[in-house]
């Protein structure tokens, strides 16, 4: 796990970013880091391969089921999108699913960010007995497969009569080891000890320090972590699939019903519409905030 500790800090990454234009004017720097035509071609291919399935989802969702099931497959959008959306809506209760996923992912993201920031701050900036051992333990928990806890968790959930309720999906993911580690990496770089000490001198207790010093400094990392956790939670499949039913599904569980049905009259276009509707909210978030998410990942702290 020492691997992660040597990743670049947000500061270093920023410094590297700023250094680049300057090297343009540096004598003798040459063209050693300028992209050639091959690089552009390869990256263009990668971009097409990444985006094509998404484009094709949209194309298939805008045709009739019969047309999608013909060869050659359609390549340009048709005019059936709204009709397919309304069919998918009826078939899998996409409205409930979208609402549920928003609630679940929102709660999980909020609480993970809050608790991870608290724990990350403690691990990064506070001295206490057993700190290093406990941090190692946090990282080690990341390696435990979630499958190992599914059976007893399922048992607890049914015992509490929470089956099919959203809290059964929210509670087990209130905080994540990955988030704790993420915030710890960020805060050890970004938060100077002097700020904390100055606040203590002014008589602030730990809670006030959290509120007035840690949160303002950690805000950018909290935003990135929040988005990443939101995406992960939105896309989570295994556990929701086990505890939720089609009466009260998240988007992923609803999609599994559209796609996994065994009838012969499955409408492929409707399946694709479901996939489109389930993905669109996240793609919109990405279109708007993609730069920040990329920046967050490349700033080095994100590792899972």
């Amino acid at each position, binding site marked *: *796990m020492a691997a*992660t500790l*040597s990743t670049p800090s947000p500061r270093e990454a920023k410094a590297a970013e700023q250094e680049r234009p300057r*090297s343009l004017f540096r004598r003798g720097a040459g063209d050693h*880091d*300028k992209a050639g035509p091959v*690089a552009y071609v*390869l990256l263009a291919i*990668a*971009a097409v*391969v*990444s*985006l094509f*399935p*998404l484009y094709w*989802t949209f194309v298939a969702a805008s045709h009739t089921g019969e047309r999608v099931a013909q*060869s050659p497959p359609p390549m340009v959008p048709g005019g059936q999108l709204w009709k397919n959306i309304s069919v998918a809506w009826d078939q899998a209760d996409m409205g409930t699913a979208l609402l549920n996923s928003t609630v679940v992912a929102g709660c999980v993201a909020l609480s993970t960010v809050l*608790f991870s920031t*608290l724990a990350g*701050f*403690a691990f990064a900036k506070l001295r*206490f007995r057993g700190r290093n051992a406990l941090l190692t333990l*946090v990282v080690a*928990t990341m390696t435990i*497969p*979630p*499958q*190992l806890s*599914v*059976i*007893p*968790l399922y*048992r607890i959930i*049914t015992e509490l009569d929470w089956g099919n309720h959203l809290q059964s999906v929210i509670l087990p993911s209130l905080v994540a*080891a990955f988030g*704790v580690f993420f915030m710890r990496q960020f805060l050890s770089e970004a938060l100077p000890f002097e*700020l904390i*000490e100055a606040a203590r001198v002014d008589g602030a207790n*730990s*809670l006030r320090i959290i509120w007035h010093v840690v949160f303002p400094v950690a805000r950018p990392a909290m935003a990135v972590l929040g988005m990443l956790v939101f995406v992960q939670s939105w896309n989570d*499949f*295994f556990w929701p699939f*086990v505890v939720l039913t089609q009466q009260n599904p998240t988007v*992923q569980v609803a*999609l*599994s019903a559209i*796609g*996994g049905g065994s009838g012969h009259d499955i409408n492929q276009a409707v399946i*694709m519409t479901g*996939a489109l509707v*389930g993905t669109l909210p*996240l793609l919109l978030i990405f279109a708007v905030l*993609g*730069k920040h998410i*990329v920046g967050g*990942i*490349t*700033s*080095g702290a*994100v590792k899972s």
Partner: protein
Amino acid sequence: MATNVRAEAPPVAPGRPAWRSRLYRFDLKASPYAFIAPFFLCFAAFGLFPLIWTGWLSLHYVDLLKPDVLEWKGFGNYTRLWSNDQFWTALRNTFTIGVISTVPQLLMALGLAHLLNFRMRGRGFFRVAILAPYATSIAAATLVFVQLFNPDYGFINWALDLVGLHPNWYSETWPSQIAISTIVTWRWTGYNALIYLAAMQAVPKDLYEAASLDGANRWQQFTRITIPSIRPTILFTIIVSTIGATQLFGEPMLFGGGVGVSGGSAHQFQTLSLYMYELGWPSRQLGRASAVAWTMLLILLLIGLVQFLITRYRKRHELGG
């Protein structure tokens, strides 16, 4: 400025009531534990406790519908796994799908990161574009690829038809495993590329400049400077991908449609996770499913141990040479 303040005033001014200073000291001592408590409470309740319970269950016969009735089996569930063909098939599938999804994925991610590290136009676009699959859920991605891989009208076979190939991506072992690995690779390559990119940006630029002045071409710079410099990050992604591959569930499950739980009609793409689910839920044998879950943990520990030993051996080897 902050340092000035620190120099001027001691933390507790003399003459303040003693309880105040005691409170201050208590705050200093206890608050770190309070801050990390939510994580450890959550882990204890939803991670550790279930983990141990699963271990206990794995030594019993348990029916999903009567989870309170435990019938002692000792290591019976494990020995039964050992002699069960379907378990070995699932183990083999998990391994082969893991290899054909992880190895090309990480290699391509390395290459992409290297390209993205160049100075170029449209860098921001390329970065967001290759990360877009990460925003797509397992369910949505798998459903799309099920369409693309459809043997009769799928886009991929339509294209392969042009060169005379016509694989059946569902019924045949290798094609189905390649198809599933493709989904995994598609979703994670861009993400890993950005992680590598982060590590590459931390490599000092002087190293490249020096190498380029010494006449090293780009490939040599890549293999002799970039790769050695980011080795810790590479190791980390290998560990994370290995864990992910061991847990693979959603992709094969949804890829198989109606027979997804059994991983295809002949279990040709059933992974350990799927096998565990099939035993525990459709077959209602929670004890045996628990044994599979613990076997997965043991396998991961074994892989971790091997990786640790290899790293240690290499370190010693390098220090010696």
